[in-house]
């Protein structure tokens, strides 16, 4: 009897220990629920600032019976796939929009057709580029959040020293770029002391290619065009700019020392003259170096027409979500105009309390942005920053995004590797992109099966 009791106790303890293993999913005991009650779990999101907390608080206030479990931290593919494989995925995942095509094709996230219909989500309020990036084969799989765009930053203080104006920095005239770059950069004794133009490749290659009139990936995300002569020309142009400045080794190692998040940023340290970059740097510059002589211009195509690439995160509902209705209500509210307004108000108050300017909020919800800028935004009084805000707002309408693709990660790797081989001096642009084309095409074909 005593022996049986001991055995039972041992098995019991073991079962408890194994059952107690934590996870990120909704848990087995949390099945079901409606838009207004039940448990709801998220992955990939965090309470990093007032923009996040204000919106989550709004959802909690309006859905008091929904038990929200936010597993904080950036999206982790390994963690997500482990949860999916264990049959216990979170209800919601917050991830980079470029990953949506792959997960949609594999069936790990739900089409939002029913969600959009039931919750009456107005898809037209979202920016077209962001909308396209969450849509695969005509089906919407995600609700976009922010819309990060790229603009060209110029250090006007340095331009003045060189006897130049911001207007003279014209990235549309590719033939004149080498001469312009030579004038802006400082290379002495093989040592790079100041970057003239940073083409930001491989990351920004799609934008340079688009400026040259070609998309690197077809609109349906299934056909790579990496060996297009215009892509090769774009890569050659970017690589030449780097070679002119001491080569990739010097260029990268110099750029690696930059700190874009502090008062010692490359703008204040006069380490760079012209560079395309995401709009978030304006916030950092306004906060850390408000007196810097910064000019923001749109990136343009070769005809001089403004152009930008949009990126950002999105919310998706997983295939095994236990409370898809609450998940849908959550994403609707997190990206609704009123919620964004509340978040922007909180940001304005926080910035005011810190004595810092509010340089806007750039969401994927065009209606929300319009309202925020009309009702909450106040010019800072510093013309440079106010003009920059206007520029960033204006380019949102000229944005394109890399389309959702069933093999997005492999496609990215193919062209990143190609650019890296060229930068490292291992291959010429045409040769590298032809190989990338073969690799991308093979991956896309395989994913399409």
């Amino acid at each position, binding site marked *: 009897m005593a022996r049986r009791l001991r055995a039972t106790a*041992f098995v019991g303890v*073991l079962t408890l220990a*194994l059952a107690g293993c934590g996870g990120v999913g909704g848990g087995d005991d949390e099945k079901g629920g409606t838009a207004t009650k039940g448990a709801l779990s998220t992955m990939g999101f965090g309470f990093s600032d007032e923009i996040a907390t204000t919106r989550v608080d709004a959802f909690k206030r309006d859905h008091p019976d929904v038990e929200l479990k936010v597993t904080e931290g950036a999206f982790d*593919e*390994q963690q997500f*796939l482990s949860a*999916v*494989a264990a049959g216990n995925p979170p209800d919601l995942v917050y991830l980079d929009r470029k990953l949506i095509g*792959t*997960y949609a094709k*594999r*069936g*790990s996230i739900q089409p939002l057709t029913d969600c959009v219909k039931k919750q009456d989500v107005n898809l037209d309020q979202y920016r077209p580029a962001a909308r396209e990036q969450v849509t695969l084969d005509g089906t919407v799989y995600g609700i976009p959040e922010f819309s990060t765009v790229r603009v060209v930053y110029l250090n006007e203080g340095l331009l003045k020293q060189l006897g130049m104006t911001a207007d003279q920095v014209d990235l549309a005239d590719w033939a004149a770029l080498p001469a312009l770059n030579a004038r802006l950069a400082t290379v002495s004794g*093989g*040592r*790079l002391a100041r970057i003239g133009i940073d083409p930001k490749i*491989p*990351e920004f290659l799609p934008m340079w290619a688009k400026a040259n009139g070609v998309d690197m990936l077809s609109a349906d995300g299934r056909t790579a065009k990496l060996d297009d002569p215009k892509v090769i020309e774009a890569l050659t142009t970017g690589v030449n700019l780097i070679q002119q400045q001491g*080569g*990739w*080794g*010097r260029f*990268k*190692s*110099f750029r*690696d*020392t930059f700190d874009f998040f502090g008062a010692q940023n490359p703008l204040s340290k006069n380490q760079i003259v012209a560079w395309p970059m995401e709009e978030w740097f304006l916030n950092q510059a306004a906060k850390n170096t408000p007196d810097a002589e910064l000019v923001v211009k749109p990136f343009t195509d070769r005809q001089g027409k403004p152009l930008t690439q949009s990126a950002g995160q999105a919310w998706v509902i997983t*295939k095994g979500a236990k409370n898809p209705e609450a998940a849908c209500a959550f994403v609707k509210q997190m990206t609704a105009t009123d919620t964004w307004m509340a978040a922007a108000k909180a940001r304005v108050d926080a910035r005011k309390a810190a004595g810092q300017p509010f340089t806007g909020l750039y969401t994927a919800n065009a209606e929300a942005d319009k309202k925020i800028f009309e009702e909450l935004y106040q010019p800072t009084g510093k013309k440079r920053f106010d003009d920059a805000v206007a520029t960033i707002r204006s380019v949102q309408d000229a944005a394109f995004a890399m389309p959702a693709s069933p*093999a997005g*990660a*492999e496609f990215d*790797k193919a062209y*990143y*590797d190609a650019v*890296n*081989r060229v*930068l*490292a*001096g*291992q291959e010429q642009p045409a040769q590298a992109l032809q190989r990338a084309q073969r690799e991308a095409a093979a*991956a896309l074909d395989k994913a399409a099966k």
Partner: protein
Amino acid sequence: MATVTASAPGRRRRTPLARREARWAYLFLAPWIIGFLIFYAGPMVASLWLSFTDYDVINPPEYTGLANYRELMSDPAVARSLGNTVYYTALHVPLVMLISLGLALLLKRVGRLQGFFRTVFYLPVMTPAVAVGILFLLLLNTQDGLINRALGWVGIAGPSWTTDPHWVMPGIILMSLWSLGSTVIIYLAALQNVPRDLYEAAAIDGAGAWARFRAVTLPMISGALFFTLIVNTIASLQMFTEVYTMYFGNRETQNSFNSDAASFYVIHLFQEAFQFLHMGFASAMAWLLFVIILIITLMQVKLSNRFVYYEGEDK
């Protein structure tokens, strides 16, 4: 008539005490056995099965026979990453062993401060691998890194450690030498166990320092040398964290530059499994690595029979 029962030879009945002790022994072993079955043996069997399937983690696996293994053999990215890993192992392991032995010999000569230096040499082992990766990105910076600055002081123009494909691997090997403290400590312990009278006998026979080292020290610490050879070889073939952090692991490196020259086998395996969702293929990669490690280890064990001396054995 009396009957005699005799138990079969070799099958003696165990006493109740022995049986009870055995039960307790199994009970105490149970956590490890259960952990091994659930967390090692189970996943290994599962991954062996998955290596014969097309599996993306999301959908059920589909049996594809040897397709993954055939693809493995023809995939240039696999060959490249395996080549890089072998190159790294071939340089890293002998260097770690040589430098560690040199340091251990020096440490043995240090008197009262030996504890302090032992701690100093071991401290880098305690540094998280991710931090080591970041630290060495800074140290290996072409223009402003400490290593190239130091080379500059003696008139040498340092290479582009992190961008020149020819210098990426030497840079990684340099980084790997940062954490050789464990090997140093093992060698130091082995050196301290070498009986002093052997050195005295050798000295009386007229053996010089080199002869004493070759004929006494090396054979007496050969067990430790063999152990570190095996352990460091296996660890080198599974190199991941530091290099992933340096070249693949953060947003900046993912979005800008990572070099083919830094593509290690396990990094490529990780990317196939979790970024491209080719878990079946990645499982095949894992089994190939397992077989490679097994073969290398068996070869090393075979060699050890000739060169390794264990205390108490007659050779």
